[in-house]
């Protein structure tokens, strides 16, 4: 037993030295996670503000100007251009200069003045369906607010309407919206915990998957095979350095997330650390497995990608699992990232504890153990 610890220790030192001797690799352990975090923290933002809009006002009356102001002062839209013809409007949307256009017909003021309904046309480029549905929702809200304001004027002038509608123009049904956990609805609070999970997954998988196969490709595997090292010792020595790197990266990225991006951390750090260890088990196992079934590093890289893409896309990282077809939803139960994302997001945003997160932890542990068993068997075969 003591001998085993000694052998693992020596092997571990060799691996750590190998990893740290390379200045570019040292750099690559720190820089990619940070860059990814900063890029996601700033770029991954689906919250829309200042949507570029064209204004085509054929009426040019007090009412049309009031309405245009209601759009521009809402904060959602910004008029980047005023056009004089439908062709100009079409050209701007085609070229992608604006995402939407607001059109008032020439009879807007006349119709509203005579008590008839006037049409307000909003044209949306549906190219990005997400942006387009937000534009739809925002512009209907603005029009509705305007209507309510006019209704209020009518009720104020007409006492008989007041007895019929004692609630006034704001309406009878009063929806009161409360948002929990991420009260200001900031995308960043959703993405930063996710990106922590993503960063270590990509880097640990990539590092582990190339580790064993590299020795095979450049021919140092034979040297290792003649040493008295046993498969389990070899595996521990190969994976432990990466586990340390993973823990370091999570600490680094989490600190930047909390202190720079102001993402709330409401749960227990200890629980997060425990969950991280379990998650690392699945990652190291999967990396080893890929490494053991690949003949060269290009193969292992391609195979890693073959796993990484579905793991990321089917994890709920960007695309909600609830939106997926039912069969695919069942497939996601095999995905370790799915569980870790729930755990890390809930610890950060909801402050959930073990009493809520234990099913995810148990599933993650089960996946890790199964994959590790498979990987150890495969690696053991190559070493014998």
């Amino acid at each position, binding site marked *: 037993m003591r001998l085993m610890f000694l052998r693992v220790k020596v092997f571990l030192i060799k691996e750590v030295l190998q990893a740290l001797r390379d200045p570019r690799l040292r750099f690559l352990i720190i820089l990619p996670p940070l860059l990814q975090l900063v890029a996601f923290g700033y770029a991954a933002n689906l919250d829309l503000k200042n949507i570029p809009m064209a204004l085509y006002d054929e009426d040019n009356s007090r009412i049309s100007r009031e309405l245009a102001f209601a759009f521009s002062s809402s904060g959602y839209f910004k008029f980047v251009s005023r056009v004089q013809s439908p062709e100009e409007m079409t050209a701007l949307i085609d070229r992608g200069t604006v995402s939407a256009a607001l059109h008032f017909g020439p009879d807007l003021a006349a119709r509203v003045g005579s008590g008839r309904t006037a049409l307000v046309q909003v044209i949306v480029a549906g190219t990005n369906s997400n942006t387009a549905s937000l534009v739809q929702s925002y512009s209907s809200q603005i029009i509705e607010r305007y209507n309510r304001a006019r209704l209020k004027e009518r009720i104020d002038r007409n006492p008989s309407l007041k007895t019929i509608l004692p609630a006034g123009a704001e309406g009878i049904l009063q929806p009161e919206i409360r948002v929990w956990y991420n009260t200001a609805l900031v995308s960043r609070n959703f993405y930063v915990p996710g990106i922590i999970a993503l960063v270590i997954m990509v880097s640990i998988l990539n590092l582990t998957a190339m580790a064993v196969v590299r020795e095979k490709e450049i021919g140092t595997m034979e040297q290792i095979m003649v040493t008295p090292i046993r498969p389990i010792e070899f595996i521990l020595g190969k994976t432990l350095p990466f586990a340390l790197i993973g823990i370091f990266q999570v600490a680094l990225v989490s600190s930047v997330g909390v202190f720079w991006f102001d993402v709330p951390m409401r749960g227990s750090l200890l629980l997060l650390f425990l969950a991280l260890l379990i998650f690392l088990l699945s990652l190291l196992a999967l990396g080893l497995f890929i490494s053991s079934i690949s003949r060269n*590093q290009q193969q292992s890289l391609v195979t890693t990608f073959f796993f990484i893409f579905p793991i990321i896309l089917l994890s709920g990282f960007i695309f909600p699992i609830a939106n997926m077809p039912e069969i695919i939803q069942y497939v996601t139960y095999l995905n370790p990232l799915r569980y870790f994302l729930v755990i890390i997001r809930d610890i950060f945003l909801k402050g959930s504890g073990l009493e809520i997160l234990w099913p995810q932890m148990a599933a993650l542990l089960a996946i890790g153990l199964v994959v590790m068993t498979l990987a150890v068997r495969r690696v053991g075969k190559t070493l014998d």
Partner: protein
Amino acid sequence: MSIRRIKALTKKEFIQMSRDIRSLGGALFIPLLMIFLFGYALSLDVDRIPTVLLDNDRTAVSREFTHLLSNSRYFTLVRTLDRDSEIDVALARREALMALVIPVGFSSAVREGHKAPVQAIFDGSDSNTASIAVGYFKAVAAGFDIALQEKRIRRAGLKMVEMPLEARIRVWFNPELKSKNFIIPGLAAVIMMAICALMTALSVSRERETGTLEQLFSTPLSSMELLIGKLLPYLCVGLADMALVVGAGVLIFDVPFRGSYLDLFVTTLIFLIGTLSWGLFISVISRTQLQASQIAMLSAYLPSFLLSGFIYPIENMPIVLQVITYIVPARYFVEILQGLFLEGVGLPVLWPQLLALVIYAVLVLNLARKRFAKRLM
């Protein structure tokens, strides 16, 4: 420059590729896998929002409102709660995204035409889904409210107050607002960038690591010949990838393609030359394949995924990042692809983007050639 020598090197690369079926298969299969995932499984379109209900009023009016909500395709009622404290658990366990609370006295307030508050609590963790859900809820509530007002006015024998304005919203290009229609064309760009840059990034560093690079240097190949010989095979793989992605997108997933295929081919070719040269450049400057793969991920995959406007709108980004997107080639490629697919506008409108891609390709090709030359001496 000798065509014969380039041909020989290209042939060697092809043979090497065909021996490694899994890498080649991966390069062709991964794009297909992603297309299928995006076409079938992934969507940002929010519907069937799981909702729990705490109805403290329990009257016909409160049921009428909850029916209206659960009959709209946006909300699905998953459970009815009995106590306030259960809301916390249902949201924390992710059983529901929204909890609707109808207070006691709701129906009597509605009957007398007084203000009748209802409370909707959302799990805001996923801010995008939550804000769309909030929008839907407000719309359903506004519809119910108008119906209530109309009923009262009619009962009093008055004519319904005509609303001064009616919003007529028209969506161009993607009228059903399917997210796959905008994601699949953009996805093609991201796949090209990721797979092609990664494959080429490994091609030279691999020769260095296994020691065959010296053999290559001892041949009479010039740097330009070496570059072209290494580029050509991957160019074929890239074009095949593009054909697969476009074919699957159009034929299987009914993504509309409204532009010209010639425009598509020319743009893809130019984009690929730039991307592959970038991969080769990385390959020359890194010492091991691990380094090369990490640099390629960082410089090719990450920016093309995040900064190309493929999912995340560029106009939402801070100004500094918006400026950076101008040097991300995938940005221009995504714009051209979305133009060709959805808007049916061709190169007469999109020539500035094409020009940017040409400049990028020429610059990077030159950069790679210079680095190659240095290594050869």
